[in-house]
C-alpha cells in the first residue's frame, strides 16, 4: 500500500482476487444464517425424541427432516423469486395471491368431480394435466407481467403496485371457484406436492432445479451484476447503459412464476385448491426468509443460498412449535422471539454496539 504513487505503480493487489471473491460471496454472509439454523436443529435434536429418525416408508424416506424439507419447498421457491425482487430494491407482496390463483387454475382445470352411481364413487378428470399446469403458470406469468408493468413501466412504488394484485388476485381466484374449495381427484397431480423421487420429496427436486438454473444464469451471465447495480444506484445503472426497466420487469415476472410453482405444490399437496387461504401471509414469510438469509431490503447485494436457509429456518421453527406441544395461543410469541434472536445474532451492531461509529 505504501508505495509512492508513480506512473509505474506495481499492480495494486498482490492477493489473487478469486478466493477473496469466494469469501465475500459465499462463506462470510452465509455463516450466520447457517449457524442460526444449526442452533435451531440442535434444540430439536435435544428436545424432540426421534427428530433425526428416518425410516423408509413405501420406497421413500420418512421422518421429521423430510417433512420440514417438503413443507419448506413452496416457501423456498417464493423466497427465491423474492430475493431477486428485493435485490432491485423492490418488494412483491402479491406472492400469496399468485399462489392462490395458480393453484386454483390448475385444480379447476384438472379438477374432476365425484359422481355416485349406486353407492360407488367414480372420479372423472377434465383437462390433460400438462395443459392445466401450463395454464396455471401462464396465469402466474400474467400476474408477474402486471406487477412488472406497474413497477417498471408506470414507476409505481413496488409495495403499492403489488398491493393491488395482493388484494384483487385472491378475489379473482375465488371468483373462479365461487368461493368453494376445489378438490382434485386426479392422482398424477398429487405427485407434484407429495410425490417422491429417489426417496426425497419431488417438490424439493423442483426447488433444487430452479435454484440450479437461476444460479447458473447468475454465474454465467451478467444478470447478477446488473440486478445489484440497479438495486444500488438506478440512475448510474441507466447511464451505464443497462436496460433498467426491462430488468426490473423480468424480475417481477420471475418472482410471480416462482409463486405460481409454489401454488401448484401447495394445492397438489392438499389435493385441492383453497382460494381463500392458500398461501396466506406467504409473502411475509418469504420476505422474512430473504432477510434472515442476510439480504438487505435496501437492495443490492443478495444471496440466494441465504434465502434458502432463511426459508428452512422458518419452516423448522414452525415444525418445532407444533411438535413441542406449544399451546396455540403462544405460537406467535415464540416465533417473534426467535426472529428477534436470529436478527440480533446476525446484526453487525450487536457485536460492536459500544464502538459503533468504527
Amino acid at each position: 500500500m505504501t508505495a509512492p504513487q508513480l506512473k509505474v505503480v506495481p499492480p495494486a493487489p498482490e492477493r489473487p482476487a478469486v478466493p477473496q471473491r469466494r469469501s465475500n460471496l459465499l462463506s462470510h454472509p452465509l455463516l450466520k444464517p447457517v449457524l442460526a439454523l444449526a442452533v435451531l436443529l440442535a434444540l430439536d435434536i435435544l428436545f424432540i425424541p426421534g427428530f433425526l429418525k428416518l425410516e423408509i416408508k413405501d420406497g421413500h424416506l420418512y421422518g421429521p427432516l423430510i417433512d420440514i424439507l417438503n413443507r419448506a419447498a413452496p416457501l423456498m421457491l417464493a423466497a427465491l423469486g423474492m430475493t431477486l425482487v428485493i435485490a432491485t430494491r423492490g418488494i412483491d407482496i402479491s406472492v400469496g395471491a399468485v399462489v392462490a390463483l395458480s393453484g386454483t387454475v390448475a385444480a379447476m382445470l384438472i379438477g374432476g368431480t365425484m359422481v355416485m352411481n349406486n353407492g360407488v364413487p367414480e372420479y372423472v378428470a377434465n383437462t390433460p394435466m400438462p395443459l392445466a399446469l401450463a395454464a396455471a403458470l401462464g396465469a402466474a406469468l400474467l400476474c408477474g407481467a402486471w406487477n412488472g408493468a406497474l413497477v417498471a413501466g408506470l414507476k409505481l412504488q413496488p409495495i403499492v403496485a403489488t398491493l393491488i394484485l395482493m388484494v384483487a388476485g385472491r378475489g379473482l381466484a375465488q371468483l373462479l371457484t365461487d368461493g368453494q374449495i376445489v378438490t382434485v381427484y386426479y392422482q398424477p397431480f398429487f405427485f407434484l406436492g407429495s410425490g417422491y423421487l429417489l426417496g426425497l420429496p419431488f417438490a424439493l427436486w423442483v426447488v433444487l432445479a430452479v435454484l440450479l438454473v437461476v444460479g447458473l444464469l447468475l454465474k454465467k451471465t451478467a444478470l447478477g451484476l446488473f440486478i445489484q447495480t440497479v438495486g444500488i444506484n438506478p440512475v448510474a445503472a441507466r447511464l451505464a447503459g443497462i436496460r433498467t426497466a426491462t430488468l426490473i420487469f423480468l424480475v417481477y415476472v420471475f418472482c410471480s412464476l416462482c409463486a405460481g410453482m409454489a401454488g401448484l405444490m401447495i394445492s397438489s399437496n392438499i389435493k385441492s385448491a383453497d382460494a381463500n387461504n392458500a398461501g396466506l401471509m406467504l409473502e411475509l414469510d418469504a420476505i422474512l426468509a430473504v432477510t434472515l438469509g442476510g439480504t438487505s431490503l435496501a437492495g443490492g447485494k443478495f444471496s440466494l443460498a441465504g434465502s434458502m436457509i432463511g426459508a428452512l429456518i422458518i419452516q423448522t421453527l414452525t415444525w418445532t412449535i407444533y411438535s413441542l406441544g406449544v399451546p396455540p395461543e403462544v405460537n406467535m410469541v415464540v416465533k417473534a422471539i426467535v426472529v428477534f434472536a436470529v436478527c440480533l445474532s446476525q446484526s453487525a451492531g450487536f457485536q460492536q454496539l459500544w464502538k459503533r461509529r468504527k
Partner: protein
Amino acid sequence: MNTASVTSGAAPAGAGIMSAPWFTSLVTVLLLVVLLAAGGAAYPGFLSEQVMLNLLIDNAHLLVIAVGMGFVILAGGIDLSVGSVLALTTMVAAWLLHTAHWPPAAVILAVLVLGAVFGAAQGALIHYFQLQPFIVTLAGMFLARGLCYLISIESITIDDPLFVAASQTQVPLVGGFISPGAAIALIVLAIAIWVSRRSAFGRAVYAIGGNEQSALMMGLAVGRTKVLVYAFSGFCAALGGVLFAFYMLSGYGQHAQGTELDAIAAVVIGGTLLTGGYGYVAGALSGVLVLGTIQTLIAFDGTLSSWWTRIVIGALLFVFCVVQRLLSVRSHQS
C-alpha cells in the same frame, strides 16, 4: 435517495414526484372528490352529511395510525407492528378495566405509555443494532398479537362508563355528528402536521429520510430522532387502539387484522414516497378517506360478493394510483 437527487432534467421515478410533492397530494384530494361525486351520482343518500362524517368516525383509528406511519415512512422506515399494537392495546385496556378494575384514565395512560415504549424498543433495535425496520417491526407484529392471546383468546367486553360514553356521545357537526374518537383523531392530525412542519424533530425526520448519512454529517441527532419516530408510531398505534376500544367497546386479539397495510396504503396514496423524505403528513387524511370511500361505495352498492369486493377494491386502487402517477408525471414535464 439516488433517484431523488438527479440534476434537473433526468427523468426517472423520483423526479416526477420530486418536482412537486404537494402536487401529488393535491391530485389525491381531487381524485377523492371525483370518487365521492361518482358515489353521489350512483347511489342516493351517498353524499348525505352523516355518510361523509361516518368516513371519519369509522376510520378514526386508521387515521391516527396512518399519521404515525407517515412519520416512520418519511424517515425512510416502515412499521408493520401498528395493527397488532392496536389490538394489544384494546386487549390490555379491556383486561385492566375488566379484571384489574383500574380507573379508566389510568388505563388509557398506561396503554399509551405501553405503545410508546413498544415502538421505542423497536426503534432502538433498528438504530443501535442496525437491523432492518421491516423485519424488526414484522417480529413486533407477531409479538404484539401473540401477547394478546396470552391475555385471553376470547374477546373481552368493555363496559366502563367512560368508554361507553366516549363510544356513544355524538359531537354535533354540520348537520350530523362525529364521535369523540374522530375529533381526537383530527386533533392528532393537526398536531402532527405542526410537528412535521414547524418542529426541529419533524424536519430532522425529513432530513433522515432524504439521506441518513448526510443528516449525520450535518450534525443532526439521527439516533435519537429515529428512536423517537418509532416511539411516536407506537404511541399512535396505542392511541388508535384506545379509539378503537371506544369504537368497539371490546378488547380482542383479532382486532384490526391487516390494518398496517391499510395504513401504509393510506400514507402512500396520500402522496408520500416509501423511500422516505418526500411527502406530507396531511396526506394521511386524504389517503384514509380514499380507502374509506371505496369501502362505503361497496357497502352502498350492496351486490358485491366477497370476491368481487376484493377485485373492486384492487381495481379502484389501481385506477387511483395510475391516475395519480400520470398526473404528477405530467406536472413534472410541463
